[in-house]
């Protein structure tokens, strides 16, 4: 039963996604994802996408590396709130934001790659 529910959920997300892309209204996708409190940042072509991500408190953000070259996700604050292991191709790193604020981060291997998460 649980299985069929989740499949239905996935199907709905896919439909929403298709609608969003079809009409150019990506906000549909974003709002659907926000409800699940999950967001993804894609690392592709030596960039974080989106470079700035705004999420509600409690959201889990997952970074996935789609490059042929390894990258990291490391926040720029002294306490290194975010500090992933090295992510090889297709590897992921997740972090749940339980405090509001702005979290600037970068790839410690390729420091020109920067991004931030704004938690509201």
């Amino acid at each position: 039963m649980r299985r069929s529910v989740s499949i239905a959920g996935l199907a709905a997300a896919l439909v929403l996604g298709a609608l969003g892309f079809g009409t150019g209204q990506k906000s549909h996708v974003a709002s659907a994802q926000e409800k699940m409190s999950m967001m993804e940042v894609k690392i592709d072509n030596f960039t974080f996408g989106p470079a700035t991500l705004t999420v509600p408190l409690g959201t889990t953000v997952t970074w996935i590396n789609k490059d042929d070259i390894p990258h990291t996700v490391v926040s720029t604050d002294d306490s290194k709130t975010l500090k992933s292991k090295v992510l090889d191709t297709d590897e992921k790193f997740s972090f749940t934001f339980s405090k509001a604020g702005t979290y600037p981060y970068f790839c410690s291997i390729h420091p020109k790659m920067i991004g931030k998460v704004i938690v509201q």
Partner: protein
Amino acid sequence: MSEKKKDELLHDHNRDGVDRRGFLKCMAWAGTGAFCVMKGGVLNSYSLSRISEISTADMMGELSFVQISDSHMGFNKPANPDVAGTLKAAVDKINGLTAAPEFMLHTGDISHLSKPEEFDTVDQILKSARPKDVFYVPGEHDVLNDDGKQFLERYGKGSKGGGWYSFDKKGVHFVGLVNVMNLKAGGLGTLGHEQLEWLEDDVKHLKHSTPIVVFAHIPLWSVYPEWGWGTEDSAQALAYLKKFGSVTVLNGHIHQTMQKVEGNVTFHTAASTAFPQPAPGKADSPGPMKVPAEQLKSVLVITDVNYVQGQHALAVVDSTLA
């Protein structure tokens, strides 16, 4: 890309205020290393891929060595699924040299993911090289996850701080620098205050006539800061070397050969033994360039050569490459 665009790029990545008088630049990819020979206190560097075109007389000098770089052992993507094979091919070329080099420099990114087995494989392959001594500096791929602890344990014996050191061979002073640690968001390679102080002290006592060879992973000149191809505080390091008549800087990192002359300093970058990267600004990102396998494994293909003879005598040292 038009000629005009090329020129724009050249100017664009030299916004460091350094005098561009005497500018020489050659670009190529898929070399496997460089044969370096010191002749009359001036270092000449030849791509191993074109070594058959160099006369034996040109290969003779006071001291010769080989620079290899960016082996990326562990990389297995389409750009080169056999990085061990291409490193072995480089070693074969080195072993086939008529003028035997005295030692090797590896300018970093020995491994792809800093895994012990990746370092082991490289060590094993390099054991079959005729030159027995190899001097290393780390690339950013060699210091992942542990701030370079493993690298220092393996290759850093007798080095200072984060792995920097110097040594002398036949009157030439070699300096290995580390510019891949403690990188800051939005920044370039960094040497850091402690290392710069050490460098100043290291070269203080040397005669001005001593030829200096500096080697480090990330270029010590602004190749293309937009892709992080430069070092924040390299100007300070070069300032300490101003008094010397002959300074050569050898780097890796950008997986293509480039040369440039600025005053008393000749800059070289070596190709990767693993895979080529695009010329500055000629792709969306500096990711690996996928090329046909037969091109990757065979000879050097010069994709782009720009040669501007400068007014300084050193500007012609690499003319045989053009």
